[in-house]
């Protein structure tokens, strides 16, 4: 500790984090190889990776970022939010609104002023909250602000009155449920049941072209790395120590003089913004955003990604998100009936026998292996002690 540290903040951050180093390395490799294989090699070539696969992976990465956001508050601050899908969806809607404005007069009704669904509903002019979404910069700002402000108001009210534990979980679930109902309404002006879809292009580049998809994929990788580093920075900082203290003994932290609610509020808002970014990257790759994203079950699924991967590690959340979603893709395709059995089983199994998830399992196996080595060579053990 006394050694003068003149390395950059990034190296310092990653020095003690072997899991994170591997994750970032892997992500960077993916960011190079997959778009390369997609764009350079022709279809039919052995090395070709289809746009479908690339988009699917991009989707998983968005989920992974969402999982990091949840792990940040659940794993490190003990806030089990069952409404994080709402922040994800809000970010997605902000992006979707920008993409809708990009359609211009190329919609079915050819109305340059109004999106198709508003023409269909006989609306005469754009509602005020759609103003500004012609600008990409404004839309990006909203991707952060819409979830951020909701999280701020909601968190401020909840944490100030010390709503904790399962109560908080239940009211976050009620929050996303209320938003689900609200966004289903046609007169909300967000496309009602059908949501926003039929996107054409982003920043002038067609969403259908492979190169745009490749750029979106790279953007997802970078966002994931960025989200990881931000979260890592927070949890390794002094503030992160306080967060862990709050998780383990909230009253004690409060009695020691920390304003628990502000710490919680800060990390909750950051987490919601990360979720919003994930949603914003998700929408152009999937091509649709609808109120179904607000469904409480989606938010609970995020929790299981984190739980399966291993909470309290950040990179575990990434592993969990990718694994569970890969399993979902495989199972809903091949044996649709089995998927819910499997998902339900995962919930029970991880909570009962794998409280630390895959990462914990890996550590356990390594420990056992080491232990066996140690017992095999008692001399070495003696040396150590």
């Amino acid at each position, binding site marked *: 500790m006394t050694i003068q540290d003149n390395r950059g903040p990034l190296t310092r951050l990653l020095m003690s984090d072997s899991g994170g180093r591997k994750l970032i390395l892997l992500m960077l490799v993916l960011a190079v190889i997959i778009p390369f294989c997609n764009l350079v090699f022709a279809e039919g070539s052995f090395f070709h990776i289809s746009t479908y696969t690339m988009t699917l992976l991009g989707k998983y990465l968005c989920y992974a970022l969402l999982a990091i956001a949840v792990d940040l508050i659940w794993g490190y601050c003990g806030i089990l939010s069952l409404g994080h899908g709402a922040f994800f969806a809000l970010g997605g809607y902000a992006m979707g609104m920008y993409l809708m404005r990009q359609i211009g007069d190329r919609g079915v009704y050819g109305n340059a002023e109004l999106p198709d669904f508003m023409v269909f509903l006989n609306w005469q002019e754009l509602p005020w909250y759609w103003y500004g979404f012609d600008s990409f910069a404004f839309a990006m700002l909203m991707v952060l602000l819409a979830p951020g402000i909701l999280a701020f108001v909601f968190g401020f009210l909840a944490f100030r009155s010390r709503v904790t534990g399962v109560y908080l979980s239940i009211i976050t679930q009620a929050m996303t*449920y*209320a938003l689900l109902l*609200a966004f289903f309404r046609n007169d909300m002006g967000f496309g009602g049941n059908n949501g926003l879809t039929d996107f054409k292009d982003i920043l002038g580049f067609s969403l259908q072209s492979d190169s745009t998809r490749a750029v979106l994929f790279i953007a997802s990788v970078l966002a994931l790395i960025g989200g990881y580093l931000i979260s890592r920075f927070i949890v390794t900082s002094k503030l992160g120590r306080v967060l862990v203290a709050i998780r383990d003994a909230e009253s004690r932290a409060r009695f020691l003089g920390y304003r628990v609610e502000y710490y919680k509020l800060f990390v909750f808002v950051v987490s919601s913004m990360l979720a919003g970014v994930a949603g914003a990257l998700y929408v152009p790759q999937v091509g649709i955003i609808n109120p179904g994203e607000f469904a409480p079950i989606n938010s609970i699924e995020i929790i*299981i990604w984190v739980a399966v991967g291993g909470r309290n590690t950040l990179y575990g959340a990434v592993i969990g998100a990718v694994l569970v979603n890969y399993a979902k893709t495989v199972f809903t395709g091949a044996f649709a009936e089995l998927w819910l059995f499997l*998902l339900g089983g995962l919930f029970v199994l991880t*909570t009962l026998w794998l409280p630390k998830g895959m990462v914990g399992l890996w550590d356990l196996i390594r420990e056992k292996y080491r232990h066996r080595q140690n017992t095999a060579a008692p001399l070495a053990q003696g040396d150590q002690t």
Partner: protein
Amino acid sequence: MMILCRQIVAALLLMMCALSQAQEGSLETLATQLIDASYREKAVLAEQIAALDDERSLPLLSALLNSALYYKKDDQRILIVAEDDSITDALSNEAVENLGRRDKKKIGVNNSLRRTLRNLISQAQINSRNPDIRLQAATNLLKSSADVEPEIIHQALAKEQNDAVREVLSLVQGLILLASDQAAERRQGLAALDGSLYPQVRASLNQFIQGFSEEEKISRRDELKMAEKSLADIETLVSMNGYIENLYFGLALGAVLLLAAIGLAITFGVMGVINMAHGEMIMLGAYTTYVVQQLLPQHIGLSLVVSVPAAFLVSGVVGVAIERGVIRHLYGRPLETLLATFGISLVLQQAVRSIFSPLNREVATPEWMAGTFMVNPALELTWNRLYIIIFSLLVLALLALVLKRTLFGLQMRAVTMNRPMASSMGIRTGWVDALTFGLGSGIAGIAGVALSQLTNVGPNLGQAYIIDSFMVVVFGGVGNLWGTLVAAMSLGVANKIFEPLAGAVLAKILVLVFIILFIQKRPRGLFALKGRAVDNA
């Protein structure tokens, strides 16, 4: 012996038929003449039939009006075909079977004949000896906005003794008078209509007021004022009844919420276990009702009664299994419990989907629960909601009794208050936990029986209620049955009162937002536990 008897009776009937057919102007001769008569002759015949003092004539005329009167081609018997295609002889009232489609022929009617028939029938009904039929006839006249000869009403009113029938008849007369061209008669009509809640009266008054031209508004000012005043009075009464109806709907919704939440009040409130599979316990109860009904297809009412204990057992046993298998290992880790039980809820949903198909199943409603009862003409309440309100209160009372007055209830409360102490007094806390969880789940199953009478039974039934039930328990205060009752009823009523103002979905959102804000103010609910229990709750 039986056969002999039947033969004798048949022979007697034949003889009687032959005898009466011989009589001139009897129902038999008149009815048979209908077969070949022209429409104009039919009208005359119908009048003669109506004039007969014969109780068979009314059904016959009604059948003729509804084009349900046939004759048999070979022996010219007059037949009435009911809505369910069963055929009876119009004259002897015997059931006629094994009749091919080509063996019978319809006796035709046209529009002018229909009008005559309608008049004749209402006249006949209004003079019927049975007051129920008279009331029915008078109400029908009111609904068809008095398309009847004024004289008939006048005569009927003069000799009517029954108050209820008199009231409706005088309204019919009022409507007729209102259309009169004499100012005095119109005023008389207005006076008769004052304060009536029948929608037809309201419509006619509205029409009456609309009908005034600009000059008439001045020349017949007092008439207009009178009409407007009585219309305003009626509107006030109707809207008051509307509020009562909303309140009733709200209480019924509250009762449903109560049923759904009582079980949760035990598992979550008393034990502190977050059971996300609670909604699926409700669903299992509803499916149990469906299965029981499939087993007893002939006795729908009985099957519903049997379903209550059956659903309690099914959901209760599943609940005990969940507690012993999963939750037991997770005490003291509420967030993990939440996740594990959520997983169980997914498995149960998919299991039901695999067994019963993802489509909704229909559960029949017994007759005594269907239909409505009329408080007054502007207020009709459905029976099934009343039963559900009563049922939910019964369940609550029973549960309170179990908690307060039985050994099991005592043990349960002891374990909740101080587990180690209870354990050292010899209570098997593990089993008490399991049974408590089973009790809560079983009550959820009973809620499912009630819900199967209100909504579709499908795999997602429970999902729709889980958030609402949690809201009720949190709102009412954890570990408090009274709080649950008050919270359920007030949320139900609030939902239904907002609904006409803001629409169903917005009302729901408003209530959710309200609860979220409410929890800010009182994080432990309306009726919070006090003292040391707060720390443990």
